[in-house]
């Protein structure tokens, strides 16, 4: 532990969202590394700049948008010097100099000076009543002007200008927007959407003068009007210049740091001086500058990683999306939507409903989207855009959005805007829309993770994740911080599932502590999310070598039964292919009576579930079931569950093949294997498909000429029919393909990622190539599965019932009574 004397000094110039977000991220990673001093010119704590428009419009107050109060700085031992401006960086002595001449030394310096509004060099630009739109001070002046004056002119028909104009109009001023071009928000909108927006703002009373070039601002003591290049004039008591922002890098430039349109930084957010970092709107990264919040949060994370001396994160730039924060107008735009010869467009225009959607595709991927009137699917398109998803399979219905593609979850609802506050969003935890909105505004939440932590919404089954993201987007405007494209495995690390799997192999890592050490886990023993994931990855990577860590298993897999709400367990013996015998049924009946098991239930997977077994009875229950020849059904496992079958050609008059026999053969070969998430199979004897094989992880449909193999179906959180993989002629080929497919999934799937999600991510063709087309690869996959099975196929019940494995698990340590 470093004491106060030896701590390094971090100085932050700029008390805005970028600088403070970086400090927050740094504190999470290395709370004791630095003495931190923050300089901010504004006399406030850190506030949410993107919500200035609602403050201007009177929908929020300044207090509503404060992110970090003065107490927060104190609580975290940060020295906040607000109202003090830094005028010089002395790189030779490593000091910053304030306006008043005070010198403050630094070991590391973070520049987060943001941007300034561009003030056009017009005659009269310095007159009282001419202002920019950038901070609380500007908003205060606009609010004051709206009470004293009547006519406002806003120069600039971009996002900021329209939000300013809307705010002033709401405060009772008559507002004219002057724009140089003939399309509003031309950087975000195409002419059609720009026209719709203009029409709808005009209906609200906004006046437009465009295209028009401003030539001079008129007035003597105060602004009185504006003159244009065509000679016309407009009266004005207030002129707001909102033509854009310019990165504020004067200070950095004066200090000799290399700047172009902003302070030039590397992928590690470092300037040309290695001790000096920069983040936010003042930087230029890979020739790009950003004026939105989401990229700055990404940058903050990377910068904090390096300030914390972890040194592995890199910033690769951001794709941004925009949503106009004018209440009642739904507008969303993302990506690149300029027409081009290699681009295709899908357009939906419904003038009566006031809906316009334009999706731009390139190489089967979404590269841009403009939505007007119905922006519900904005975040969904944006997700696909950032992930580079191949959307060709849903192209026909793409323009209708997520709900029409069955991605809206079980409820099928996706219209967040139309929902009342009482509408339940998260069915698992009973969280309604109003509660989420309240948490976002009261607790100042930005990300899906924040919302999960505070409300529990989307933290269980996850099927409402899309809805919660939409609530976030609607509540915060388009600038909410979308979940990162590459998701970290859990909060204990910044590494993704893929990174972890790759490094385990490359570095020959063979224990959980070794992985955590090498990959610099942020927590001591990880958590309930990453430990089971790591345990699985190691088990799947090093069969026969890795020693399964019982303490990193979820309870169900540790005790080989399913925990119930009252702390008892349920027991499901395996019934191969769903076939049982009188003696097995008799044994189950005897066990149920002997141990007073309260509920006996038939499962959906053609087996029998014994519910309400006390933990200490488990070994004895298993012993009796073992005696009758039954073994664990792994109904608790992220592993092979059931192979559901129909009776097939042995009995059925329509059966084409022996589906029951094939199902049993597959189950006997594959039982005991661990997989990223549960795997359920089905074998149907004819296309009537009585075993419902086409909504399973893997399904076989027998036909007269052979076996059709399907996979990537689901019938739970999501309902999804399977994809056709291939058709084979013999049972042996069928087994080989299914086993190879499962092995590929075992090697590539992310922990808890079901097969259909894996297929979505990796792509059907990719999988088919490696499992079907490449015969050699198929055989190699099959061999690796078979090898790992020799260590996996040992009945965990008999090990515990007879060999005394984990004896301590099932008995109390001691018993006490009251004296």
């Amino acid at each position: 532990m470093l004491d106060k004397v030896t701590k390094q000094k971090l100085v932050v110039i700029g008390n805005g969202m970028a600088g403070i977000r970086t400090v927050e991220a740094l504190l999470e990673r290395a709370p004791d590394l630095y003495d931190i001093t923050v300089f901010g010119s504004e006399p406030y704590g850190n506030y949410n700049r993107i919500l200035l428009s609602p403050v201007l419009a009177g929908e929020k107050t300044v207090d509503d948008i404060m992110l970090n109060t003065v107490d927060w700085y104190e609580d975290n031992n940060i020295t906040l010097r607000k109202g003090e401006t830094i005028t010089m960086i002395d790189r030779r002595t490593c000091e910053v100099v304030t306006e008043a001449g005070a010198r403050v030394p630094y070991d590391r310096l973070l520049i987060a000076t943001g941007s300034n509004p561009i003030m056009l060099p017009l005659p009269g630009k310095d007159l009282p009543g001419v202002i920019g739109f950038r901070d609380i001070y500007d908003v205060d002046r606009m609010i004051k002007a709206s009470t004293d004056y009547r006519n406002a002119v806003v120069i600039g028909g971009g996002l900021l200008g329209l939000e300013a104009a809307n705010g002033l109009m709401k405060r009772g001023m008559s507002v004219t927007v002057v724009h140089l071009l003939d399309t509003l928000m031309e950087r975000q909108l195409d002419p059609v959407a720009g026209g719709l927006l203009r029409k709808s703002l005009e209906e609200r009373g906004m006046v437009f003068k465009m295209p028009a070039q401003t030539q001079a601002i008129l007035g003597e003591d105060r602004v009185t009007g504006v003159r244009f290049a065509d000679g016309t004039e407009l009266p004005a008591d207030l002129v707001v210049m909102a033509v854009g922002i310019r990165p504020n890098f004067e200070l950095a430039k004066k200090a000799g740091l290399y700047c172009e349109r902003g302070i030039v930084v590397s992928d590690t957010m470092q300037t040309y001086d290695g001790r000096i970092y920069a983040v936010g709107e003042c930087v230029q990264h890979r020739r790009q500058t950003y004026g939105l919040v989401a990229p700055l949060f990404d940058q903050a994370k990377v910068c904090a990683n390096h300030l914390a001396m972890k040194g592995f994160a890199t910033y690769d730039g951001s794709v941004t999306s925009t949503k106009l924060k004018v209440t009642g107008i739904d507008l969303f735009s993302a990506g690149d939507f300029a027409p081009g010869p290699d681009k295709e467009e899908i357009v939906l225009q419904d003038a009566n409903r006031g809906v316009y959607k334009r999706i731009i595709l390139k190489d089967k991927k979404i590269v841009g989207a403009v939505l007007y009137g119905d922006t519900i699917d904005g975040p969904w398109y944006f997700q696909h855009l950032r992930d580079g998803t191949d959307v060709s399979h849903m192209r026909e219905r793409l323009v209708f959005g997520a709900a029409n593609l069955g991605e809206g979850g079980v409820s099928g609802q996706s219209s967040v805007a139309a929902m009342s506050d009482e509408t339940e969003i998260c069915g698992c935890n009973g969280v309604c829309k109003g509660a989420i909105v309240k948490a976002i505004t009261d607790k100042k939440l930005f990300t899906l993770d924040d919302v999960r932590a505070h409300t529990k919404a989307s933290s269980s089954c996850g099927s409402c994740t899309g809805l919660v993201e939409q609530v976030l987007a609607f509540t915060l405007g388009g600038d909410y911080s979308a979940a990162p494209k590459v998701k970290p495995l859990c909060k204990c690390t910044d590494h993704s599932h893929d990174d972890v799997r790759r490094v385990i192999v490359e570095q020959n890592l063979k224990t959980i502590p070794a992985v955590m050490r090498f990959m610099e886990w942020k927590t001591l023993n990880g958590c309930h999310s990453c430990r089971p994931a790591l345990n699985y990855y190691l088990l799947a990577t090093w069969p026969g070598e890795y020693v399964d860590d019982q303490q990193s298993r979820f309870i169900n897999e540790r005790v080989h039964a399913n925990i119930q709400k009252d702390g008892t367990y349920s027991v499901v013996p395996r019934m191969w292919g769903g076939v049982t015998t009188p003696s097995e049924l008799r044994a189950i009946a005897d066990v149920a009576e002997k141990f007073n098991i309260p509920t006996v239930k038939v499962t959906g997977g053609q087996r029998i579930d014994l519910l309400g077994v006390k933990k200490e009875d488990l070994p004895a229950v298993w012993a009796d079931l073992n005696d009758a020849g039954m073994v664990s059904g792994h109904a608790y496992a992220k592993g092979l569950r059931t192979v559901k079958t129909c009776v097939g050609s042995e009995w059925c008059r329509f059966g084409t093949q022996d589906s029951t026999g094939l199902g049993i053969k597959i189950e006997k070969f594959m039982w005991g294997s661990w997989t990223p998430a549960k795997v359920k199979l089905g074998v149907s004897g004819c296309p009537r498909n009585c075993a419902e094989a086409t909504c399973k992880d893997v399904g076989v449909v027998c036909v007269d000429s052979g076996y059709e193999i399907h996979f990537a179906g689901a019938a739970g959180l999501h309902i999804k029919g399977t994809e056709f993989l291939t058709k084979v002629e013999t049972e042996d080929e069928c087994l080989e393909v299914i086993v190879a497919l499962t092995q590929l999934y075992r090697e590539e799937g992310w922990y808890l990622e079901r097969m259909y999600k894996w297929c979505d991510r990796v792509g059907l063709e990719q999988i088919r190539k490696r499992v079907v087309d490449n015969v050699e690869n198929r055989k190699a996959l099959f061999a690796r599965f078979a090898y790992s099975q020799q260590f996996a196929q040992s009945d965990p019940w008999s090990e515990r019932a007879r060999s005394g494995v984990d004896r301590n698990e099932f008995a109390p340590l001691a018993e006490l009574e009251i004296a």
Partner: protein
Amino acid sequence: MTGWIEIGALDDIPRLGSRVVRTPHGNIAVFRTESDEVFALDDRCPHKGGPLSQGIVHNKRVTCPLHNFVIELASGQAVAPDEGCTHTHPAKVENGVVWLSVRQAVPVS
């Protein structure tokens, strides 16, 4: 009276794991951390009464197996933003033996 009761050997509790001690007032979960500290809590999650002894232990915390509430072993407090608290009991290790202090309790003879 509150006195220390010997409840078993430290080695009988797995590292990053837990065992239960039965009492007429319900189970007490005794946890062992990676660095061989022990903590004792009522085996009931403040959320929906889940058996904390069955959860995954990480650092000085345990995650309830029912709905992933995370509980601090030392204080019994739920980790923010969750709220709630589970009753704790004094516990210690001496020479590889675990001792527990529970009001009015004695070992079953």
